[in-house]
């Protein structure tokens, strides 16, 4: 097996071993940290499909992360106050069931990605970045000014949502759920990258003219990629909200978009496990440096600078070398 495979396996192994060790030695906080890594990596895997495969620099992925979060918050808050979500034309109740919430998060963020993508993919380069950013900010301010669901204060959910057969309040079990979803998303992203769709999307990033010349539409390819990307990031948002049992407009903020992008760039743009490596490093730094000084972002900035200047393939690129032209 090649080096990238070994690096990826080591990463996964570490991500499983650390919480297991923490479970044995009764350190629930470390398990929570690992869960954060898994969830944020999931958000990054979503962005990486747009950014790495499609070359779409979206600074608005917080929109999907936030919609996933609010899908959870809205459904769970109605369930917890026993008020229906809508009464007419049909009755729709809130729910505390994770699978249902995930489906709602995926569908709503995919729809939003379709709308945002349909409009913003007509532009490219700096304009695309600005339009995605603008959409993200629009949702941010919308969430702030929507009193029904907490406005600026956000929504607290008192008890974590349930998953059939599991006790989700047990940190290790919730980690298991998040980790499993991450693996599913990684599997999907891997299949996607090698599929005919991935091949065409990848070519559209490198030479849109070529893709047109063979009779395919780069716009359609990118839009579909953007929707898949948004849906995965939306699912991560629902999990993130469940982890904190709290949703707030800050999930929509452009800093969130920036952080998701930092995971991808730190780990390696377009590398399957890039977001996993990036999120792991980010959370580790936040934990270690954050304890020393609250201005730890200075060091993160410095690191990001070094990665962008000297290690374009990110951590994965540094450890596993240049990506092989996949066979």
């Amino acid at each position, binding site marked *: 097996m090649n080096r990238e495979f070994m690096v990826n396996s080591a990463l996964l192994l570490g991500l499983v071993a650390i919480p297991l060790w923490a479970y044995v030695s009764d350190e629930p906080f470390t398990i929570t940290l690992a869960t954060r890594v898994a969830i944020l990596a999931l958000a990054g895997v979503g962005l990486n499909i747009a950014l790495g495969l499609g070359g779409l620099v979206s600074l608005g992925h917080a929109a999907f992360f936030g919609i996933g979060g609010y899908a959870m918050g809205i459904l769970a808050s109605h369930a917890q106050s026993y008020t229906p979500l809508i009464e007419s034309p049909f009755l729709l109740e809130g729910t505390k069931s994770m699978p249902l919430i995930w489906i709602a998060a995926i569908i709503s963020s995919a729809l939003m990605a379709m709308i945002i993508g349909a409009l913003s993919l007509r532009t490219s380069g700096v304009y695309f970045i600005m339009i995605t950013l603008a959409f993200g900010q629009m949702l941010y301010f919308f969430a702030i000014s929507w009193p029904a669901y907490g406005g600026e204060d956000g929504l607290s959910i008192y008890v974590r949502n349930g998953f059939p057969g599991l006790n989700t309040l047990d940190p290790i079990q919730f980690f298991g759920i998040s980790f499993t979803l991450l693996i599913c998303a990684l599997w999907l992203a891997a*299949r*996607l990258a*090698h*599929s*005919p*769709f*991935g*091949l*065409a999307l*990848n*070519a559209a990033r*490198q*030479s849109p*003219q*070529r*893709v*047109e*010349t*063979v*009779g*395919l*539409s780069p716009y359609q*390819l990118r839009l*579909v990629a953007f929707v898949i990307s948004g849906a995965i990031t939306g699912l991560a948002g629902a999990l993130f909200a469940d982890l904190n049992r709290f949703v707030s407009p800050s999930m929509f903020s452009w800093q969130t978009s920036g952080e998701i992008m930092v995971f991808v760039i730190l780990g390696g743009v377009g590398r399957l496990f890039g977001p996993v490596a990036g999120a792991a490093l980010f959370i580790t730094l936040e934990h270690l440096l954050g304890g020393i000084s609250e201005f730890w972002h200075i060091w993160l900035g410095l690191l990001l600078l070094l990665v962008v200047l000297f290690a374009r393939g990110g951590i994965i690129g540094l450890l596993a070398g240049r990506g092989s*032209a996949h*066979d």
Partner: protein
Amino acid sequence: MTEPVLATFGLTKIFGAVCASSDVSLTLNQGEIHAIIGPNGAGKSTLISQICGGLKPDSGRVEFLGRDITTMPLRQRARLGLARTFQVSALAMDDTVLQNAILGNLGARGKPFDFFSSALKQKDLRKTAMLALERVGLADHIFTRTSELSHGQRRQLEVAVALTLRPKAFVMDEPMAGMGADGSRGMTTFLDGLRDEAPILLVEHDMDAVFALADRLSVLVYGQIIATGTVDEIRNDPDVRTAYLGDAA
């Protein structure tokens, strides 16, 4: 006489004060190679862009297989079977040779939204791509990154991608550019055999190749076709000699 496969009627395109195409009418018939020659800046690339899509003419029409395609987007023309190769290679440079060829066939199939199967393991995709690569002589380089190919090899790959589209007509913009003498001879032999499959509208600077291949020639100068005819007719045309061949000799 059968209908031409591809025809333009009075194509005119003006950029500011420059008349890039002026009343250009030409036809491409079944089984022929029609070469367009002309000095640099004569408007050859502008003409190709109007035929293949990307530039809309100010006036005039383009017909392909009896259909008016003047305003049709590039990718729909490709779907109809109009295959173009580029003067400056427009290939996915980070991808392998095989991936580029498969992309072509994927376009011909018209169903890119296949998310789960492996593109390189699909037998029909791979077979068509391999066949095309073998024909242009790139079968030994299928796993080479495209950016590592020589200029000549990239030309060959451009042609291979066009082949995978199973086109009804080729439009080739300088397929010999950047090739050595050997490569150029090889490509000449190859194109010679290709004309029976689909006619070729060939823009080329390599006069040896043009004279060896072309059934008909059109000479484009300042956006205007000043002569059309067989190789001998063009060679002996006094206007052409002064405008073009004379300068070159």
